[in-house]
């Protein structure tokens, strides 16, 4: 238990040599996938096919296949959208914000988290696009292009901000991810024996030569990208929160939404990263690179963001009472004790109560327990979006239009399908690309940097 605060913890454990790091990270790509991999893949693919059937039903018969109807016009579609976008935010946070904060422990998990960002945003995009109904003509009202009607999209609508935010976020995350991959492609190119692989790696490595004259600009660009990705990730979930908060609906219109949504996004995203990383480090023997210390740090972030979310719940409740606005007060009482109280208390217990176990160091460092808590957090954060969306809508201003929302099988099918897509992409990623950034991990390995760098020179 006694920590020596004067010493820095090694980022990479087990004193690996640089060549060993290469071998370790590249191994999943060199080996043929085993039976377990195919088993996992067939499982995720079957989840995906459930989703495919549901999507086909939705496309063929229309949105009527879903459960949302007056007064709950937004339901699973936006809940899942916000959930997946939120999952994505952890990736950018780890890769960009922790980079700017010079947290070296991010190197082991950054690549993986970035990949999850991209996959999660892809999953997220399914839902709003499906909800446009005829998605093959959605471009007409989603993008500003000159048309014969002389119409433009409504730039004052938060839904259009969403289109811009999510597409920018996806593009920038992809570019950021790819820029990080360039040196790794070069390393893979130089170590592979297969001819076909070599051509592919050469093309993607853009002729990278590990030249320091390039490294200099490369590092600068990486910092600039991180500098842009940081406000971008805030803006994306802020804009997602604007979807709700610019309205005048009690329960949606509250000024704390932007930072609260961002905190919630990071919270859920970290939980998802922990969930997936636990398996990845086990399966690919990456325990020395994705160490238990890294997981502990992530659990601390989960604890911190969980409390931020708890603060927002409390503040919303307090101000609802403090505002003296009866409609506002009703909305919150109804949330906690109305027909959807079950959802509300699932949310509170999973998001606020369960993460409190992370105060205990033993739990923070125990892999099975953190897995359980992380899964609870994921469930809780999904329910948070459900609570915000559905409970605020199901009690309309006129009691005659009150209703109760029940999702249909197709609703669940699309949700399951999105999980299938996400995990399929994750599985494919682990076999095709280095799950850990080779060059970054090498740069923080013991003895990788010149002694007495800086000052003396």
């Amino acid at each position: 238990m006694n920590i020596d605060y004067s010493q820095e913890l090694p980022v990479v454990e087990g004193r690996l040599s640089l060549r060993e790091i290469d071998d370790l990270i590249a191994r999943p790509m060199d080996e043929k996938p085993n039976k377990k991999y195919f088993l996992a893949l067939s499982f995720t693919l079957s989840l995906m096919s459930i989703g495919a059937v549901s999507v086909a039903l939705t496309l063929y018969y229309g949105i009527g296949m879903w459960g949302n109807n007056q007064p709950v016009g937004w339901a699973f579609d936006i809940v899942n959208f916000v959930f997946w976008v939120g999952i994505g935010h952890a990736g950018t946070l780890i890769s960009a914000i922790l980079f700017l904060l010079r947290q070296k422990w991010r190197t082991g998990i950054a690549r993986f988290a970035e990949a999850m960002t991209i996959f999660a945003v892809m999953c997220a995009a399914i839902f709003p696009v499906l909800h446009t109904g005829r998605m093959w003509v959605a471009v007409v009202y989603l993008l500003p292009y000159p048309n014969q009607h002389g119409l433009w999209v409504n730039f004052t609508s938060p839904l259009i901000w969403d289109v811009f935010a999510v597409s920018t976020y996806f593009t920038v995350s992809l570019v950021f991810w790819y820029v990080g991959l360039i040196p790794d492609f070069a390393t893979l190119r130089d170590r592979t024996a297969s001819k076909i692989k070599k051509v592919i790696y050469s093309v993607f490595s853009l002729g990278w030569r590990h030249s320091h004259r390039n490294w200099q600009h490369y590092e600068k660009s990486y910092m600039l990208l991180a500098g842009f990705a940081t406000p971008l990730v805030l803006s994306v979930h802020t804009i997602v929160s604007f979807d709700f908060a610019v309205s005048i609906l009690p329960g949606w219109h509250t000024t704390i939404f932007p930072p609260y949504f961002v905190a919630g996004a990071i919270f859920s995203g970290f939980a998802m990263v922990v969930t997936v990383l636990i398996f990845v480090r086990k399966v690919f023997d990456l325990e020395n690179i994705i160490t238990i210390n890294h997981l502990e740090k992530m659990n601390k972030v989960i604890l911190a963001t969980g409390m931020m979310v708890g603060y927002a719940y409390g503040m919303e409740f307090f101000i609802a009472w403090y505002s003296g606005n009866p409609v506002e007060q009703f909305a919150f009482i109804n949330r906690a004790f109305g027909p959807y109280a079950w959802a509300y208390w699932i949310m509170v217990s999973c998001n606020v109560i369960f993460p409190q176990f992370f105060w205990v160091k033993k739990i923070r460092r125990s892999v099975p327990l953190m897995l359980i808590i992380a899964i609870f957090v994921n469930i809780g954060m999904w329910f948070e979006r459900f609570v915000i969306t559905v409970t605020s809508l199901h009690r309309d201003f006129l009691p005659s239009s009150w209703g109760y929302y029940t999702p249909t099988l197709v609703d669940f099918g699309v949700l399951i399908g999105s999980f299938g897509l996400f995990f399929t992409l994750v599985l494919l990623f682990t076999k095709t690309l280095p799950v850990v950034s080779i060059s970054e991990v090498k740069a923080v390995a013991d003895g990788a940097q010149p002694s007495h760098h800086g000052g003396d020179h």
Partner: protein
Amino acid sequence: MSHDNLNFVKKELPTGFKNLGLILLLVGIVGGTISFFLNAEQAIFNYLLAFMFLMSIGVGALFLISLEYVAGADWSTPLRRVIEFSASVIPYLIVLSIPILLNLHTLFHWSHTDVVATDKVLQGKSPYLNEMFFAIRVVVVFAIWGLFYFLFTKNSKKQDITKDQKLTSINIKLSAVFIPLFAITASVAAIDFMMSLEPHWFSTIFGVYFFSGSVLAALSVITYATVKLREGGYLHPKMVDDHYYSLGALLFAFVNFWGYIAFSQYMLIWYANLPEETFWFLARWEGSWIFISLALIVVHFLVPYSVLLSQPAKMDSKKLKFAALWILFAHVLDLYWLILPTFHGESNFVNTILGFSFIIGAIGLVMLLFYFNAKKTNLVPIGDPKLEKGLNFRL
């Protein structure tokens, strides 16, 4: 592990610094007293402004201390004393709040029972907004801050002598407890002292808004003090410009954060356009207030943003000093914008000018506290195990 930190030689701050602080404080006290007798109502609003200024610096710095411990940051360890000194106003807040508690009727609309009797909304709020509970909250909030300030600094000072690593781990645990408490207490303070000035208005983000401003103010004080002290050779000789960079980057980040929070609050209220919320902004859009509202965007966001944008600027001591002072000024303007529109009484020119004496006094107080603290303790936490790591911090 070599003990290079023994190279550190303590240097006394010049007495001129103390004298300047004393003069400023006296100017503040004299000007403030005159102002109070000329126009008590305006004076007390100006006093609240200066009080919030001190409070935001103190509690912002206290938060930064705990953040350093809990995040395991080491670059800021060589500057931790500067941060601790910036927080040293906290024990005095309870004393400084006495004039406010004595003048609740002047400041707070909700303290008039006759008004509340005819106002349904205020009646609803009266379980929270009443004089007794207000006073209790003030005492509890300042007691919590004072307690943690006392514990943090006690352990930190003790470590100078004992070099005991256990003290660091105690402080880490204290910080972990403090941060959630801080979130609640700072929000309560913000709501009580500033939001409830306009008791009908409400905004859930207000606590976060105050938090962003107060951390920014504390950071500016720390940055300015660090640059000045290092130039005078009071800090550890092994400190380099890379430490400046971290300060500059944090300042830059919080300038952005403030802009983000301020924009979010304005945007949502502007867009939804509900009369029970917009009136607060409309009051700041009337008459000459519109200029302050617009100036705030430029002064509090655009100027520091452009000054600190480039990477070399974050390491440039001149630019950092300018940015720090500028942000402090912007913070005062922000507080002015938050507090003074609720002052509806008669104001006159002399008293408006005299109102500045409160802020001058507050600055003097910060300087004096700095001087006496620096006299009692080392300007560098020489016993901290993270010090060497912190000194070797490079980008």
